[in-house]
């Protein structure tokens, strides 16, 4: 699962970087009173919790397999 975590993190940074690369004072994220930055914040929050839950899920799966084998 570790490569997956790195993948998610690097994807996140790539995404933010590509959005930011457009720059300027009137870019997408700053339009309509910066509401999209709030959307981004909610998305990040959701993604962090979901990634954690996925990792926990896979850990429990491993344990279940172990119990099943014994």
């Amino acid at each position, binding site marked *: 699962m570790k490569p997956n975590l790195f993948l998610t993190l690097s994807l*996140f940074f790539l995404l*933010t970087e590509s959005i*930011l690369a457009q720059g300027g004072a009137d870019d997408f*994220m*700053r339009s*309509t*009173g*910066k*509401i999209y*930055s*709030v959307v*981004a*914040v*909610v998305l*990040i*929050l959701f993604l*962090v*919790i979901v990634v*954690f*839950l996925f990792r*926990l899920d896979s*850990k*429990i799966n491993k*344990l279940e397999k*172990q*119990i099943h084998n*014994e």
Partner: protein
Amino acid sequence: MKNWYKYLSVLLMIYVIIAGFLIPLKPGIQSFSPSKITIDPDKSSYLKIKTYNTHFQDAQQNKVWLKLPNDQLLRDEKVTILSQNELEVSFYIPSTLPDFNPQQDALTLIVENEIDGYTFYPDAVRVNDVSGLMTNRNEYHDISKINQVESFKFPYRHILHETIRNTFFHVAIWFAMFILLIYSCYHSLVYLRSKSLVSDKKSASATTVALVFGIAGILTGSMWAKYTWGTFWTTDIKLNMSATAMLVYCAYWFLRASVSDIDTRARLSAVYNLFSFVTLMILVMVIPRFTDSLHPGNGGNPALGGEDLDNTLRAVFYPAIIGYTLIGFWISNIYFRYLTLKEKVELI
């Protein structure tokens, strides 16, 4: 009902997301030009004002005022509406204003109509005094003339704009993290008294979820910072304090990982948890008092200032804290069950 807190957390989060996104912002003044008026006793001065969330075209009585430091008001001569959020206004400003020092004071700009109520930009317009001519063409109005419209809307803050809604997502998750950490410390104490491994696992799982919330808090915080202050990472003390907390709890996990004996691990991590929590409390209490912070309502007081959190924000902010905390307990409960399962497998 056994799972009441799960349903409650879901309901609260639905409320927070819906209310947090749908309640509109109060109108506000975005920008105006020029910021400095040179008074000409024969002519009127013009100001172009750009606002946010106003309804100039729908409203019948658009008024613009300039407030003097002694709370007297100067009314506009003529208001020209360009669009819902733009207007041009002309003033006649007398060359000698009562109780006004052009070097120090500035006039507060107030825009008002019957739909939006009033909105103001404090100390906006500076005045260049040119001549000492006295004119009596001017009337001063009392501050009670301003039209107040009661509405349930979030306050408009300069620079922050709509991102004030992040209070419910970014700030609330920090509070939830702290509540989870306190819960974890409580279980560490219980462990040290009773030596039951159940409390150790409860404490460890609460710390894990707090760490996840903390990481989310740092990422969302840097996102917010990017669109208000322009950088991902600032030298702001609150940010660095939370980064320190993250370092400490990562170290807590390394400590747990590097001790193999279960009882020793539980004992040592409980001690480290309590010790580091007290040290972090020192950091939180002590440091902001002698450094200024970028965070709204700071510099001197680590808590949220009453001025910055008005009642409309509170109506969503407090439910958000409770919602996140309950979700945190829910996840930590799942993690606790995972740890229990793991222990059983290891014992086999």
